[in-house]
C-alpha cells in the first residue's frame, strides 16, 4: 500500500490497510472508521489529525485492541504489527504487545490514572506486566529511573503520591512513564496535550519528541490540532468522517495543502502574525453523522469549493509522490477559481 510511498520508512513495523470499525449501539450501527489506511516505519513519527468524531482515537484503540468487545466490530484488510496479525492474535499475544510493543498515552491523565493507587505502583505494574521476574528493589529503581526520564523532579518522593496530589502536567508525565515502562517500539499518543494548560503543552510535546528520538520509537500523534502535529512528526494523515483524506510528509503538507478540509483545519490555528483582534476561523458546519454518512464526499456540505459531482460520487485519490488526497478539486479547477 502506501508504505512504499513513504520515503523515510525502511521497514514498516505497523501496517493498517482499509480499517473499518463499527459500533453496534442500541440506536443503530455507527461507522466510526470507514477505511483508514496508513503505515508506520520504525523510529518514524506520524501525525493523525482530525476533528472529534473523525475516528482518529477509535483507530488508535483498534490497533491496541482496546475497543469494547461487546459493541465494537473491527475489520481490516491488514492490521499488522511486525509479524503479528493484530486482528487474529490470541489474547496472550495481544497482552504481550500491549504496553510491551505498542504503548498508549491518553488524553486526560486524571481519568487515565487510577485515583486510589500510588503513581509509583501504577508505573511499577506496567513494568512487571512484561518482566514478572523483576525483584522489588530493581523494580523501584526502574520506576524512579522512568520518572527521571520524563523529567519529574524529586522522583523518589513523588512515587508515593496519589494522582490527585500532582499537577496536570506531572500526571501526564506519569502516564508517559507508564507507557515507556516496557520499552515499547511504538508510542501512540492520543491527544496527549488537549487537557493540559497551554504552558505545559509545549513541555509535554517536547518531552515526547525527545523521548521518541532518544529511544528510536515509532510514534503516532493523534490530535485535532494541525499546529501540534507540525511538531515532531515526519508525516501527517488528515482524517475526516472515519477515513484518511490527505496524507503527506509534514513539510510537503504545510507547503501545499490540497484537500479543502486540511486547509480549513490549518486556518483554525492561531498564529502570531495575525493582526490583533482578528477572529480565528473555525471549520464551518458540523461533522457528518457517522451513523449515516452521505454519498459522495463526506466533507462537501462544509466545503466552499464543492461542485455538483462532490455530492454524488466519492472523490478519487490523487497522488503526487508520497502526497495523496481525496478530492474532485484538481489543480486546473483550483486555478480557475
Amino acid at each position, binding site marked *: 500500500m502506501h508504505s512504499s510511498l513513504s520515503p523515510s520508512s525502511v521497514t514498516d513495523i505497523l501496517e493498517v490497510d482499509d480499517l473499518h470499525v463499527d459500533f453496534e449501539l442500541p440506536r443503530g450501527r455507527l461507522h466510526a472508521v470507514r477505511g483508514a489506511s496508513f503505515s508506520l516505519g520504525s523510529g518514524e513519527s506520524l501525525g493523525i489529525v482530525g476533528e472529534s468524531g473523525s475516528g482518529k482515537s477509535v483507530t488508535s484503540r483498534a490497533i491496541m485492541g*482496546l475497543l469494547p468487545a461487546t459493541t465494537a466490530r473491527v475489520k481490516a484488510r491488514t492490521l499488522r504489527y511486525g509479524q503479528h496479525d493484530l486482528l487474529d492474535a490470541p489474547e496472550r499475544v495481544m497482552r504481550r504487545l500491549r504496553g510491551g510493543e505498542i504503548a498508549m498515552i491518553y488524553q486526560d491523565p486524571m481519568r*487515565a490514572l487510577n485515583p*486510589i*493507587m500510588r503513581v509509583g505502583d501504577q508505573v511499577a505494574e506496567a513494568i512487571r*506486566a512484561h518482566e514478572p521476574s523483576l525483584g522489588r528493589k530493581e523494580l523501584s529503581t526502574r520506576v524512579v529511573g522512568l520518572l527521571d526520564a520524563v523529567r519529574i523532579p524529586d522522583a523518589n518522593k513523588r512515587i508515593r503520591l496519589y494522582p490527585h496530589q500532582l499537577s496536570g502536567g506531572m500526571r501526564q508525565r506519569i502516564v508517559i512513564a*507508564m507507557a515507556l515502562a516496557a520499552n515499547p517500539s511504538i508510542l501512540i499518543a492520543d491527544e496527549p496535550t488537549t487537557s493540559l494548560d497551554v504552558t505545559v503543552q509545549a513541555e509535554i510535546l517536547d518531552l515526547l519528541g525527545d523521548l521518541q528520538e532518544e529511544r528510536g520509537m515509532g510514534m503516532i500523534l493523534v490530535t485535532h490540532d494541525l499546529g501540534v502535529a507540525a511538531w515532531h512528526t515526519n508525516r501527517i494523515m488528515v482524517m475526516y468522517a472515519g477515513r484518511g483524506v490527505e496524507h503527506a510528509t509534514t513539510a510537503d503538507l504545510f507547503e501545499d495543502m490540497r484537500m479543502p478540509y486540511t486547509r480549513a483545519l490549518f486556518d483554525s490555528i492561531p498564529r502570531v502574525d495575525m493582526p490583533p483582534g482578528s477572529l480565528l476561523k473555525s471549520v464551518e458546519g458540523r461533522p457528518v453523522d457517522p451513523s449515516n454518512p452521505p454519498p459522495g464526499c463526506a466533507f462537501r456540505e462544509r466545503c466552499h469549493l464543492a461542485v455538483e459531482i462532490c455530492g454524488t460520487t466519492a472523490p478519487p485519490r490523487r497522488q503526487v509522490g508520497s502526497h495523496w488526497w481525496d478530492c474532485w478539486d484538481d489543480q486546473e479547477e483550483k486555478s480557475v477559481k
Partner: protein
Amino acid sequence: MQRVVQLVVVLGGVSLLTFLILNLLPGDPGLAVLGDNAPPEALEAFRSQHGLDRALHVRYFDWVSGAVTGDLGTSFRTDQPVLETILDRVPVSLQIVVFAQILALLISVPAAIACVWKPRSWLERTINTSAFATISVPNFLAAYVLILIFAVHLGWLPATGFSRLSNGVVENLRSIALPTVTLALSQFGIYTRVLRSDMVDTLEQDYVTTAYGKGLTNRRILVRHVLRGSLLSLVTVVGVNMGVLLGGAVITETIFAIPGIGRLMIEGIAQRDLMVVQGVVLLAATAYVVLNLIVDVLYTALDPRIELGGQRRA
C-alpha cells in the same frame, strides 16, 4: 471531634427515647414480675426497691448518670446487674454475627468478580438467581430449611442450642454453624449485588482501559483495579448490617435458641424487665455509631481522596 459530639448526641437521644417509650407504656413491671395476684404491699415494696415510685425525670437522670459510669442498673427479675448480663451475652452474638459476615463476604466477593469476569454466562445467571433467591426468602424460612436438612435428615449438626467456647472449639463451631449460615445467606445476595453493580460501573472507567493498555492480565485488572475501586458501597452496607445484627439477630437467635443479645431483648420485653431492654437498646445504638465511625475510617483507607470528616477532593 465532630464524630465524638455526634456519638454523644445520638446516644443521648436514643437513651431518652427508649426510656420514655418503655416507661410510658401501660403495664406494671411489678405485676409482670411478681404475678397478677401479688399483694399490694409486695408491689409497693418492689416499686420502692427499684425506684419506680420516683418521678420520671429523676429516674431518667439516675439511669443515665449510672450508664455513664458503666452501671446500667439491675434486672427487675434476676436482680443481676444489667451490664453483667449483657456482657455475658455479647460474645455469643458477636461470634455468630462476625462469622456470618466473613462467610457472606467470602462467597459474595468471588461471586461478584465472577459476574463481571464472565458477563452473560451461565455462571453469572446462576449467581444472579441465587442472589435474588436469598434476598427474597425470609430468614426464618431459610433457618427451618437448614434445620430440616442438616439437623433432621442428615443429623450432622444440632438443630438448636449453643455451646460455649469453653466447652470445646468443635462443639462451639457445630452449634453456631446453622445460625451463621442462615445469617450469611441473608447477606450474600445483597453484598453480591451491591459489589457487582459497583464493579460494572468501575469497569467503564478510563483507568481500567489504561490497565488493559499496560498488558495486565484480566485477573490482576479485576482484582487490583476494578474490585479495589468498587469497595465503598460494600463497606457501607456491611457496616450498617453489622450494626443492625449486633443489636440482635432476633429471629435467628430465637429460632436456634441462641442465648445472645437478641434473645435477651425479647425476654426483657416479654417480662417488662425495663432495665434490661434499656441497656440492650443503648448497647445496640453504641455499636451502630461506633461501626459507622469505623466505616468512615475505612473510607479514607480505601480512597485517598476522601478526608476524615467527609469531604472528597477532586
